[in-house]
């Protein structure tokens, strides 16, 4: 079940015809051919487009928008009014949703893409980038979101998966995708499928940061281990974590994931956000934590400031004062196994 890579070549041939449609393409890394004689890239993140005229939706622009979000907070919002509060508080982007994860968790049932009317209303309310969620594997929801002209799609485990084997082939889209991961193997599988941004999954809608910490510790710990490995060991490691070898090698060389990696799932306080930043993530998603709290505007501002000044305990202390009630947290061990969202995704 799932993916198994002994060698990681052919997968990169798949998106090529599609990418060629954008214009002449060359590779920053060495060219080579697989057994069928078809040319393969070493890895998607190193594909560069040789631009002639204006080339839209290149890998650089997809990954580039995530770069611009770094050091920032992306907030879940369910109404245009909440989106305005988020923008006013300094969010770098909003995630347009019908229900925040805490409500999805409480109400149960199948969670799907939000009503396009709501997403458009939120898009019209703000000037910052707008993201929205599609179900894992539901490529038509993704097509719909792309047609709405939003800025990023989250292929998200917070919604009920539509496919228990395949994720969306994100190379086929002009719009960039962010995907969740619990470790680098899962993250690199998503990058191989075309994700231009990652986020650790955490456990959404719990207000409990423990899973977010677990996943960030896993990702950054594995990166540090990779950096100490010999070349011979990288092949085996890639096989063990079921990730494309070329991407594994790239992580070892860069000392970081090949795309921007945010934290998500359970961040509820300024200190939570700063904790994730100190663990090494590039920014944070806050879902239920803001609008399920007593004073959303003040808490949103405080989380933004703590994310910027994550290494400055005095500032974190200052912004944490008098925020009112945080969202009620849930003990992870009290959640029935089948309701754990982080386990969705393959």
């Amino acid at each position, binding site marked *: 079940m799932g993916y198994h890579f002994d060698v990681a070549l052919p997968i990169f041939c798949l998106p090529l015809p599609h990418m060629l449609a954008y214009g002449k393409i060359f590779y920053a890394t060495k060219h080579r051919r697989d057994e069928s004689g078809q040319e393969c890239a070493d890895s998607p993140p190193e594909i560069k487009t040789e631009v002639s005229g204006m080339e839209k939706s290149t890998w650089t622009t997809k990954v580039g928008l995530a770069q611009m979000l770094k050091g920032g907070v992306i907030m879940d919002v369910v109404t245009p009014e909440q989106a305005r509060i988020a923008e006013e508080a300094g969010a770098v982007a909003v995630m347009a949703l019908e229900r925040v994860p805490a409500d999805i968790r409480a109400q149960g049932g199948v969670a799907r893409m939000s009503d396009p009317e709501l997403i458009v209303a939120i898009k019209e309310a703000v000037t910052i980038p707008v993201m929205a969620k599609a179900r894992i594997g539901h490529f038509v929801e993704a097509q719909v979101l792309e047609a709405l002209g939003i800025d990023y799609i989250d292929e998200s485990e917070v919604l009920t998966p539509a496919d228990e084997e395949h994720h969306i082939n994100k190379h086929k889209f002009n719009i960039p995708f962010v995907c969740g991961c619990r470790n680098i193997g899962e993250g690199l599988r998503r990058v191989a499928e075309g994700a231009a941004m990652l986020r650790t999954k955490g456990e959404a809608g719990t207000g409990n940061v423990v899973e977010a910490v677990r996943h960030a510790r896993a990702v950054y710990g594995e990166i540090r281990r990779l950096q100490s490995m010999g070349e011979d060991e990288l092949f085996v490691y890639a096989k063990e974590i079921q990730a494309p070898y070329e991407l594994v090698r790239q992580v070892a060389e860069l000392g970081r994931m090949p795309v921007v990696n945010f934290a998500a799932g359970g961040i509820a306080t300024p200190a939570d956000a700063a904790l994730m930043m100190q663990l090494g993530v590039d920014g944070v998603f806050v879902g239920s934590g803001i609008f399920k709290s007593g004073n959303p505007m003040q808490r949103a501002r405080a989380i933004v400031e703590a994310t910027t*000044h994550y290494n400055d305990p005095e500032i974190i202390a200052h912004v944490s004062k008098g925020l009112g009630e945080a969202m009620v947290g849930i003990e992870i061990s009290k959640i029935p196994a089948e309701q754990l969202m982080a386990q969705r995704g393959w």
Partner: protein
Amino acid sequence: MAVGVLALQGDFREHAAVLHQLGAAPVEVRLPRQLAGVSHLIIPGGESTTIGRLLDRYGMLEPIRARAGRDLAIWGTCAGAILLARQVLDVKKGGQPTLAVMDITVRRNAYGSQLDSFETLLPIPLLGEPPLRGVFIRAPQIETVGKGVEVLARLEEGAIVAARQGRLLVTTFHPELAADDRVHRYFLEL
């Protein structure tokens, strides 16, 4: 004097990496006291509403304005260009704090949503051959420039994408993402 990179939010590490390669030791600037020892400041790409709010909240607007273009050379990329512009169009509802020190008018998200982000080869006469790979991400556009402002680069259809007013420099694209250090070298000479 050191080179600073405003590190409130955005792709400041990418700018810092280019500066490291050029042998400059960049300083991350988040608070007014970190600004004191800096002769050059890069305002990176990011979200202009976020960076503007944090500049305001942490008392950075006045200290930067007081020195801008005088003993502090500033280069704004993308969001940075918005923050430097004296007039900004399509601002957040209710307006947004900016430095407003350079005599240009900038329109935010002038090309559309992320789906309209693009790359293009950009001839910049000042830098010579080859053209620079211009990466435009939800980019603003410079609509008008004042008398003392020199236009450094335009898109083929005429849109202004780089300009300079004395020791103030703006680009609406991202040289820090293009593996080309020529604009950084140019800025360090300002």
